């Protein structure tokens, strides 16, 4: 508990706008939030930081009445409240701006502002609604064009409409979920100025973000969530990005050495099986998502990739598996230049891939379990011979995979989406491990699994390593990374900051690298 007295600038005796006490929210098999306490004061911008799956969104959904908590209480201005719907939350002055805007594209800005608003005049001509919108826009300092259609607006303008819609309903607490993800730097600057003006009127803002530098710039205090629990609340002035990154990912790390090889394990191969040389990727917006990355993958070795999510991990994974074309640089498989990005080539070469969003991109949810399990091996015997597809052989394969993955499947002909997310994940992991004869690229393979399943998953990775496969293990969990990796690379802003020896690595160094500080600044001995 960090019980706080009234912060400076707030009249003594003023209660926090929002107090959470011991909030707990559970889903079947998952603790989304547990024992979360949070105070948000008038006149503060409060950042909520945490990895994916740390429970930030669930917590905010509890605050805005989308979910009802199983434990704990929500206190507004000193009075206990329960919300059974988002409408009640907005009536109490809590407004949320979601990452994906909830606007009617074909309506004008004024129409969107007035939609579902009980204060909207009963009979309103476009002119009246536009005049009202203009007045609201000026009052809150968010310039919008009331007569423009939402579909003609940029992401930044749409976000302003979304914010105005909330503010018009007299929100005193504005919750923003990753507001800068879709904005240009200029738009981000404008948003931050407006948020500061909103704060100056004695209102409060909760901002969910992954971007540490922005958290440093905009927030007064930071609360960090990890594994559904709050780790702590800090004054931003006392923080720096590296320390935030380390706190976000680094629980009390129990170092278990899973690097030790059992008898008879394959040694680390001297020649790399895959190499990236100065690989860069530029996306459609012209942003460099991967910058000048060079690395060597050796058989019999696990290369861990650490970093705050969204720093190029996705692009790295896709380049390593042929799903994304590089803009410049070279990729070599067994010393041979790979001419074009073609996932089929990489599969043939024995590159397995457990993608980050495996349920969306590695499975066809409406098709049967058997069909999905055959996805990697259907062109090869025994399933695929002479251009045929042997459903029986596919069934045998599916049975094998399910057995290894320890997933009980009542009916292999049922759509795979009927299985739980965790089971789908286990099946995908096992399917990919089967074909990963040379390389396995595993993006967040343990995400969403319980502790026992995580240990099993890490065991899969070390088993593959012992068989001489090169494993790329991308994770946000430093404990897992430190325990199984031989080397750890850290990604920041699309750059591979440095690759360090996992045995010698310490939290401080990795934290600094994750916050964008060069390893050379910190620990010259540990680089490369």
């Amino acid at each position, binding site marked *: 508990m960090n019980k706080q007295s009234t912060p400076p600038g707030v009249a003594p005796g003023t209660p926090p706008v929002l107090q959470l006490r011991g909030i707990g929210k559970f889903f079947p098999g998952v603790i989304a939030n547990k024992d979360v306490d949070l105070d948000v004061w008038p006149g503060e911008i409060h950042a909520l930081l945490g990895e994916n799956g740390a429970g930030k969104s669930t917590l905010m959904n509890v605050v805005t009445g989308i979910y009802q908590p199983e434990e704990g209480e929500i206190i507004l201005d000193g009075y206990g409240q329960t919300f059974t719907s988002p409408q009640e939350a907005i009536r109490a002055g809590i407004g949320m701006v979601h990452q994906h805007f909830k606007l009617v594209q074909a309506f004008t800005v004024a129409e969107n502002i007035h939609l579902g608003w009980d204060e909207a005049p009963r009979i309103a001509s476009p002119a009246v609604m536009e005049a009202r919108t203009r007045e609201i826009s000026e009052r809150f300092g968010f310039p919008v064009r009331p007569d423009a259609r939402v579909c003609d607006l940029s992401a930044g303008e749409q976000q302003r409409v979304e914010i105005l819609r909330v503010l018009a309903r007299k929100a005193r607490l504005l919750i923003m979920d990753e507001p800068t993800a879709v904005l240009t730097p200029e738009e981000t600057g404008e948003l931050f100025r407006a948020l500061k003006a909103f704060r100056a009127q004695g209102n409060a803002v909760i901002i969910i973000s992954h971007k540490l530098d922005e958290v440093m710039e905009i927030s007064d205090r930071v609360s960090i969530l990890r594994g559904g629990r709050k780790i702590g609340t800090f004054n931003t002035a006392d923080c720096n990005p590296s320390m935030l990154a380390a706190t976000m990912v680094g629980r009390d790390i129990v170092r278990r050495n899973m690097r030790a090889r059992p008898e008879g394990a394959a040694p680390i191969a001297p020649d790399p099986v895959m190499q990236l040389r100065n690989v860069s990727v530029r996306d459609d917006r012209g942003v460099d998502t991967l910058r000048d990355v060079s690395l060597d993958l050796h058989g019999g070795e696990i290369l861990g990739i650490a970093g705050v999510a969204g720093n190029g991990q996705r692009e790295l994974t896709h380049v390593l598996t042929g*799903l994304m074309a590089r803009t410049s640089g070279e990729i070599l498989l067994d010393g041979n230049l790979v001419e074009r990005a073609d996932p089929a080539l*990489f599969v043939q070469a024995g590159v397995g891939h457990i993608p980050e969003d495996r349920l969306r*991109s590695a499975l*066809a949810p409406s*098709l049967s379990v058997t*069909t999905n399990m055959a996805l990697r091996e259907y062109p090869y015997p025994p399933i695929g011979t002479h251009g045929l597809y042997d459903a029986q052989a596919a069934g045998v394969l599916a049975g094998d995979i399910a057995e290894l993955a320890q997933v009980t499947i009542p009916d292999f002909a049922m759509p795979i989406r009927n299985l739980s997310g965790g089971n789908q994940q286990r099946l995908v992991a096992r399917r990919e491990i089967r074909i990963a004869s040379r390389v396995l690229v595993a993006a967040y393979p343990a995400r969403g699994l319980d502790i026992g399943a995580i240990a099993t998953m890490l065991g899969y990775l070390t088993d593959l390593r012992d068989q001489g496969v090169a494993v790329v293990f991308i994770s946000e969990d430093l404990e897992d990374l430190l325990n199984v990796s031989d080397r750890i690379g850290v990604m920041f802003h699309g750059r591979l900051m440095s690759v360090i020896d996992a045995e010698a690595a310490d939290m401080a160094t990795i934290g600094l690298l994750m916050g964008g500080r060069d390893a050379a600044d910190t620990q010259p001995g540990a680089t490369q």
Partner: protein
Amino acid sequence: MAARAFQRLPSAPAGRILVLRLVAIVLSLFIIAGVLALSGHSPVTLAELILRSTLGSRFGLEDLALFMCPLLLTGAAVTVCGTIGLWNIGAEGQFYAGAIAATGVALGLHGPAFVLLPVMTIAGILGGMAWITVPTLARAYAGVNEIITTLLLNFIASLLTYYLTTGPWRDRISGAQVSTQRLPVAIPEMWGIVHWGFPVAIVIVIALALVLSRTRWGYEIRIGGANPEAARYAGIPVRLRIISVMLLSGGLAGLAGMFEVAGTVHRLQGGMANNFGYLGIVVAVLARGSCLNVIPAALLMALILDSGIVMQTQQLSASVVLAITGLILFMIAIGDELAHYRPVASTTPKGKAS
């Protein structure tokens, strides 16, 4: 608040769908009977007449088979395309294109039937493929919505048929309106007026079902339709598969046109597609993505069409027939939707309900 007594499941078991569809059909028949009775017709007499002229007599059965033949192929055309997640709304146009190509061969070349018929078949298939080529390439390479492009080409094909049958290919022998002369060759008849196109169509539908479930190509099509992203991930050349599926779809509809012109009508006529292309969409929707289901779906559709003709002989207008078709399909759609719901076992004690 009232507790929800029903829950919607993402997938519905086939058995439930079948039962609810039968209920839907029976209910719509009752509604139709009621309306007919109110407008002074005797539903019982009418029903007897319809049964006698469709399922109850040899001529009726022959007619049914002739209706089914094009519906099987256009239904299969739409179903195959739907497997990869695309809608071929242009079976009507491809049907005409196939019919035109086959007619062109029959009118332009001279030779024995055993030479001409295979050439006409190939021409019909190629005609249908040609008609879907532009939508196919536009879809595969530019992402242009195939629903619009295939639909619009229907009107062009239909008008082209009118032009040919009133212009360069008009019947100069017997002077039939909007029609070519009788073709010199015909698909041989197998049973009464039912030509060999009918069993061939059934075989094609069964073969397609096998191809989709038992070949690598079929597997790739199914994955591509269920989740294009997963297909890309698996290294499946989705673009090439889209091209091959759409061409196959067009070819099937073109073959339907060839069968119709060479087996049933024996002439190219304006309006001869008789909405078979559009009804193929209905058949595909009734078949719910399964090729084998196309057979019973086409049978149901053929029954409706055939009954419609019988009713027209009883002073019921064509639009009444259309309305009845619509009603039955509407009720079936409701039945399909209801099949997704299942009662929720209430956990709240009864006394607590407010």
